[in-house]
């Protein structure tokens, strides 16, 4: 496979630099492998030394324990079975003094524990323990790693026989050493590498002691593991394998020689990872440094390449390219040093110098001609006006960018074409002749059309006004006409707008009979608009002055205007006057003139202002004033008439009140007198008739009273004050209840209903409505009366609703008429004045009253107490 190299100089340089780093990398890796080998060797030695140290320590402890056992067997209390309680106490003392002991005890030759430091509730026999049997047999020390039968903990138990004077074995003393405590002591004195495991196991693979995590391991039997098999097979040595916990370790192991026979091994394991950690981290550090160095070197190569190699090369390339394009002034700009690049630059520059020298002469001859042409072209191209040249045959030979823009043609569409292309068809012929005429004329330049506006035609056919200058040049015996044209559409449009505004102003002035004027403060000469002249009945063309203007005013008006002009001239005081004038034709007019002084520095230089014919307005004002006066007079008259009418009504009421009742009293009284005094002559029928006469007269009296009441409602003067309608309604209902205690009704009155009005009239109003409701529910089983209000289109509408006799809507319009009744007196008593009274009161408050009902199903009476915005009956 081919190695792909970068194409650029830069990339290649960087690749070279990186390649140089590869051997260093190899060296570092090799070194690391070497170091690991050395570490492994050391580890094997270290673990073995550690194992030996542990074994030696065990041996030392066992030796001191032997010493203890020997002295215990000499004690009488140990020897005599009868003293077993005292024995237990003594042994407990011993146990307390030795933290490493887990138990101390004495056994009979049968194996039964006679006394022990750790008390046991039941009989314990240790006769089956191999080390006990052995001590009885050999009459010497015997020991064993095992799990204590009394303590239940891993122990190293050692026994020594008690031999009496006759040489008979009469028992044994044993000490159980706590393996956990032993290990803890050991670890305190020896510093172990992190992760180191210590294990004591017997030849069956049972773990007797373990550091760390003793509780998790002790008592487990793992004969099948590789470690156990290796230990049992080799008995002593080192190995590198996965431990019982699955971690790869360096192991060292050897048998613990405690008694003549071996039944336990010590194994020490140190994790490989811990051992190799320093080597691994050294390797990582070295590789990191190497990476940094490689990066820096690469970067240096990258940036160095630009300055040292790329820049000169690219300068050379640029110069070559420019020269290739014909730029003879191109040079490399590099120092001509002795290096390869310097030499290359030198050769190139030399060549360029030679080439340029030969070209300069050629160029100078062309230059002058070119400059002249370029200047002309520049002017033509930059001109804001269209420049168009035509030859004698009236074909276009020059069409500049402005012409393109104005006419919408590209130059190449027009060049060589007849000029007619740019003119409206109807002007073509005339224009052609015009140009021909110009051709014969002696002058060389003039305005075309003598300020007449010409019309051009755009490519899209639109015509537009132009202003043109034309000139004639003879070249090579041919005449060339050049026209400079300007599109004056915008100017024409502005002129048109001004004309229209002017016309608008004049029209408005005529309509409003208003115009403007001004006059010079020094010369006192002035100008005025047509309308101002017209108001004066003067010719607008006539000259005017302050004095002429003043002539139209006489009397009071003259004094006012003279004072105002004086004030304006001398104190720059503006004025606004309404004056009477007499026009040139003798017409009388009212005018309003507003004057505004104009200052230059401190001096007033002119006054200008407006002048308006306000004769019509003045007439209208006078009319209004007259009308107002008439109206006031009429109101006065009407009021007086009304007062008289009211007076008459009042005295009529008074007279009715007094005089109409007196005859009724006579009729009633004498009828009664007849009945009393002539009872025997009248008979029953006669008395009946007289009874009717009396009833009729009494009813008539009632009618008269009600009529008077109604009249009073109309007549009484109104007061306006806040009235609590809810409270009022409550008091009326309470009064009804009081006067008719046998009746009851379910009355609901909305709280907080207020109104502004006449308290007395409003009481009469509510009284009538509630009395009606009370009256017309008289025949209901469960009478209901409700007084409330709701908003309708911004107006508060009050209502009194009942579930009484109701009425037919057909007669709704009759309800509010005076003395109108929809029920007979026999059904419901009354004169029919109540609702008429209600309506009058409501009307006097500016409101409206109406009713809704169904015959037999109750009625609702609505009323408002203020005018409604829009009259939409609910």
């Amino acid at each position: 496979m081919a190695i792909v190299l970068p194409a650029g100089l830069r990339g290649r340089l960087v690749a070279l630099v990186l390649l140089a780093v590869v051997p260093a990398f190899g060296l570092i890796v090799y070194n690391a492998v070497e170091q690991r080998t050395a570490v492994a060797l050391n580890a094997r030695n270290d673990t073995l030394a550690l194992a030996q140290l542990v074994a030696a320590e065990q041996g030392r402890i066992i030796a001191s324990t032997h010493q203890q056992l020997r002295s215990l067997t000499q004690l009488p209390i140990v020897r005599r079975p009868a003293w077993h309680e005292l024995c237990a106490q003594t042994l407990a003392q011993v146990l307390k003094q030795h933290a490493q002991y887990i138990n101390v005890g004495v056994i009979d030759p049968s194996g039964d524990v006679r006394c022990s430091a750790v008390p046991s509730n039941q009989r314990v026999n240790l006769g089956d323990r191999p080390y006990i049997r052995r001590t009885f047999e050999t009459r010497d020390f015997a020991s064993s790693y095992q799990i204590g039968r009394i303590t239940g903990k891993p122990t190293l138990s050692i026994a020594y026989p008690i031999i009496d004077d006759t040489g008979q074995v009469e028992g044994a003393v044993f000490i159980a050493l706590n393996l956990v405590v032993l290990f803890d002591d050991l670890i305190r004195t020896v510093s172990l590498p992190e992760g180191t495991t210590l294990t004591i196991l017997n030849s069956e693979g049972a773990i007797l002691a373990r550091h760390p995590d003793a509780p998790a391991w002790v008592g487990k039997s793992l004969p099948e593991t590789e470690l156990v098999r290796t230990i049992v097979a080799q008995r002593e040595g080192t190995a590198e394998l996965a431990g019982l916990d699955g971690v790869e370790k360096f192991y060292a192991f050897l048998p613990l020689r405690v008694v003549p026979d071996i039944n336990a091994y010590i194994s020490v394991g140190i994790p490989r990872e811990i051992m190799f950690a320093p080597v691994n981290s050294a390797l990582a550090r070295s590789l990191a440094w190497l990476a940094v160095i490689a990066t820096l070197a690469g970067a240096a190569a990258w940036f160095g390449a630009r300055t040292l190699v790329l820049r000169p090369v690219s300068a050379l390339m640029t110069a070559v390219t420019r020269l290739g394009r014909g730029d003879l002034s191109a040079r490399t700009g590099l120092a001509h040093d002795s290096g390869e690049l310097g030499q290359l630059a030198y050769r190139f520059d030399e060549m360029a110098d030679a080439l340029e020298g030969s070209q300069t002469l050629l160029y100078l001859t062309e230059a002058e001609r070119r400059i002249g042409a370029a200047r002309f072209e520049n002017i033509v191209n930059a001109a804001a006006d269209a420049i168009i040249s035509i030859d004698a045959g009236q074909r276009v030979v020059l069409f500049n960018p402005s012409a393109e823009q104005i006419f919408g043609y590209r130059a190449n569409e027009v060049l060589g074409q007849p000029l007619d292309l740019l003119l409206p068809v109807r002007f073509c012929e005339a224009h052609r002749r015009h140009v021909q005429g110009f051709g014969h004329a002696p002058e060389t330049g003039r305005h075309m059309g003598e300020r007449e506006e010409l019309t051009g035609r755009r490519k899209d056919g639109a015509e537009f006004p132009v202003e043109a200058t034309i000139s004639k040049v003879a070249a090579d015996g041919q005449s060339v006409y050049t026209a400079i044209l300007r599109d004056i559409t915008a100017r024409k449009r502005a002129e048109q707008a001004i004309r229209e505004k002017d016309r608008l102003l004049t029209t408005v002035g005529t309509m409003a009979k208003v115009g403007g004027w001004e006059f010079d403060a020094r010369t006192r000469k002035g100008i005025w608009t047509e309308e101002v002249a017209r108001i004066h009945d003067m010719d607008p063309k006539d000259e005017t002055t302050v004095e002429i203007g003043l002539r139209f005013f006489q009397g009071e008006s003259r004094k006012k205007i003279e004072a105002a002009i004086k004030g304006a001239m001398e104190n720059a005081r503006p004025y606004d006057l309404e004056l009477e004038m007499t026009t040139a034709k003798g017409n009388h007019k009212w005018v309003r003139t507003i004057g505004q002084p104009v200052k230059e520095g401190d001096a007033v230089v002119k006054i200008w202002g407006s002048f308006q014919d306000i004769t019509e307005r003045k007439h209208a004002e006078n009319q209004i004033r007259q009308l107002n006066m008439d109206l006031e007079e009429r109101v006065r008259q009407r009021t007086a008439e009304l007062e008289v009418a009211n007076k008459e009504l009042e005295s009529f009421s008074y007279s009715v009140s007094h005089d109409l009742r007196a005859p009724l009293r006579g009729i009633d009284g004498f009828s009664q007198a007849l009945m009393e005094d002539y009872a025997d002559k009248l008979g029953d029928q006669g008395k009946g008739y007289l009874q009717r006469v009396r009833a009729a007269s009494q009813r008539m009296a009632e009618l008269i009273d009600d009529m008077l009441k109604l009249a009073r409602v109309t007549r009484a003067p109104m007061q306006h004050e806040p009235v609590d309608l809810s409270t009022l309604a409550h008091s009326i209902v309470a009064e009804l209840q009081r006067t008719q205690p046998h009746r009851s009704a379910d009355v609901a009155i909305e709280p907080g209903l207020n109104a502004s009005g006449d308290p007395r009239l409003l009481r009469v109003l509510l009284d009538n409505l509630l009395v009606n409701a009370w009256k017309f529910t008289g025949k209901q089983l469960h009478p209901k009366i409700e007084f409330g209000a709701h908003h309708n289109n911004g107006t508060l509408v009050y209502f009194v609703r009942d579930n009484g006799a109701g009425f037919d809507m057909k007669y709704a319009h009759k309800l509010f008429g005076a003395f109108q009744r929809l029920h007979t007196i026999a059904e419901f008593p009354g004169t029919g004045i109540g609702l008429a009274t209600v309506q009058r009161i409501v009307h006097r408050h500016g409101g409206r009253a109406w009713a809704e009902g169904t015959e037999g199903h109750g009625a609702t009476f609505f009323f408002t107490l203020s005018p409604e915005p829009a009259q939409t009956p609910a």
Partner: protein
Amino acid sequence: MHRRSILLVEDNPDDEALALRALKQNNIINEVIVAHDGVEALDYLFRRGAHAGRDASKQPAVILLDLKLPKIDGLEVLKLLRADEHLKLLPVVILTSSKEEQDLINGYRLGANSYIRKPVDFTKFVEAVRQLGVYWLVLNEPPPGNGTQQGKIGN
């Protein structure tokens, strides 16, 4: 025993007859002096004209005064009465047809002691007269200095 009189000022003969009848029906047997207009009433009270020389000590226990009267009306009579040093304490009951507000106000303002509207219903009128009699002739203590004797109802 001297019974105190009643002065009835009434221009309508029907009303006069009915009033007398009502008094009679209620067994009021006190003397009733009838004046038919304001002038007559004032003549009686001020002891002028036809009544000149009348016994000054025999003033009526109560005056039943109609308002609408020929010549001088009831309110005018009342006004003159109240203006007089000797007569101003005499009890005056306005007994008339109307209960126009202005009449009520003016009547009380001028010093009427009571205002009674004549009911059209004669039965009610009789009852009103009965109560009037009981009150003014029996229950009411007249002002001092106008006669000595209390009125009495009985037959």
